[in-house]
């Protein structure tokens, strides 16, 4: 029963679909099941040999995902080496080089199990028929979703930015616009109206820098509860309302605003 004779991906009638594995841990769990070994007492040499066979296939087929698999191969070999080395004195008897890997495998297995449960739930939910509301998906008078997220805001912001015309001529000028300006501008905007759409706030911002600063000012005002943002349903237009502290005096330091500015730039970058 030599495993060398196993025709993994070699013969035409037995091909392994590499795409079915979610990563090295998934592949290892598959091999543990296939080889019928104990997850808490993995025969490293045997599993590593099997593992390398698959990894050779993966590297041949898809270099992009191969890195993670190769890293795990190195880990396996290091574990085996450690197990072969005689134990130095003073080292605990109970120390098992496999421990970390086993813990990771068991942890991953739990969530794999949980994902199966979720899959079943989704199927049951799909069988459940919810009749459409007679009122229909209209924008309700009351905003049902106060939990407008930063993601929603940044998405809306990106839409505004794509609408802002970029100037075709190059003239280096100095744009005098500060966050304080725009904060003041926004507060004045809401002086005699309680609500505005996100896009209305940017109607007077033909230049990119003005839109950017307006957005930062909006975030600052939302943070200090002087304005608040809502949606009626997910993906609906973001609407801006006066916040609970709208009438509070504006006396935040510049440092706070600068901090917010950095975070926004980071967030936008991360989301791209």
């Amino acid at each position, binding site marked *: 029963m030599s495993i060398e004779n196993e025709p993994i991906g070699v013969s035409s009638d037995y091909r392994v679909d590499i795409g079915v594995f979610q*990563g090295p841990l*998934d592949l290892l769990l598959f091999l543990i099941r296939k080889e019928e070994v104990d*997850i808490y007492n993995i025969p490293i040499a045997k599993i590593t040999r099997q593992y390398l066979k698959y990894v050779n296939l993966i590297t041949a087929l898809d270099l992009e995902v191969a890195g993670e698999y190769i890293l795990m191969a190195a880990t396996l070999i290091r574990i085996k080496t450690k197990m072969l080395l005689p134990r130095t004195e003073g080292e605990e008897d109970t120390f098992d080089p496999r421990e970390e890997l086993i813990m990771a495998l068991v942890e991953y297995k739990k*969530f794999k199990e949980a994902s199966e449960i979720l899959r079943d*739930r*989704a199927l049951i*939910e799909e069988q459940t028929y919810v009749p459409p509301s007679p009122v229909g998906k209209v924008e309700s008078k009351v905003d049902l979703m106060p939990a407008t997220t930063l993601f929603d805001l940044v998405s809306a912001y990106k839409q505004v930015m794509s609408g802002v015309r970029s100037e075709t001529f190059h003239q280096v000028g100095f744009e005098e616009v500060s966050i304080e300006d725009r904060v003041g501008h926004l507060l004045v905007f809401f002086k005699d109206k309680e609500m505005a759409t996100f896009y209305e706030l940017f109607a007077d911002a033909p230049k990119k820098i003005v839109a950017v600063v307006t957005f930062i000012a909006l975030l600052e005002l939302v943070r200090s509860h002087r304005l608040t943002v809502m949606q009626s349903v997910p993906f609906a237009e973001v609407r801006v309302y006066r916040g609970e502290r709208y009438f509070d005096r504006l006396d935040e330091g510049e440092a706070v605003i600068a901090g917010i500015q950095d975070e926004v730039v980071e967030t936008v970058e991360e989301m791209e």
Partner: protein
Amino acid sequence: MEHGTPHAIVEALILASPEPIESKKIAESIEGMTVAKVATMVSELNDKYTQGASAFRIREIAGGFQFHIIPEYTGYVEDLFTRRRKMRLTQAALETLAIVAYRQPITKSEVEHVRGVASDGVIHNLLEKSMITIKGRAKGVGKALQYGTTDEFLKFFGLNDLDALPRMSEIEELVRAAEDRRQTELRLENVAATEAMSMKLNVADGTFDPASREEEELIEVETEETEAI
């Protein structure tokens, strides 16, 4: 049970709401109503529907009430109306969602640590599908974004809240039980093989030799394990 006006109002609000409606919202719309009373009324309404053999019930999902047609009748509905196709989630997406659901708030690198693979794409996808959302920033170096599940997530999986998910300890139990069962089976096989081996030793004349194959295999497995790689 009585069929006073408040019951009908509760019914009307739930029926008309395009999204699951919170009991708090219902309570606010009716004078002298409390959240607890709304819950009682909903269960009384459901009793009434059951008694009247109605095709629908009110259920609690994502923290709100909603009408739905009970499974016995969905078949008829689907025969008549084309099925709205729900989006399918990939295995990667399901795994990631499971991790986020149980560990939220959680950063991308923490997700990747559990999965053992890069997860930028799948996280971005889940964000776009509104299954997860940014919940804040982690303390420490880099202040990484933390993610959590949304009401959309609850609705997609038919959950009222996160407590409706099976406890992690139950899943651990499930995994351990499956592993134990597998190990017991393996041990039994080994015992059977050993017994057969000793039986062979007892049979001196060599006419009865049912275990020679297993014996060879056992030895081979042992040598394999001691081999260096």
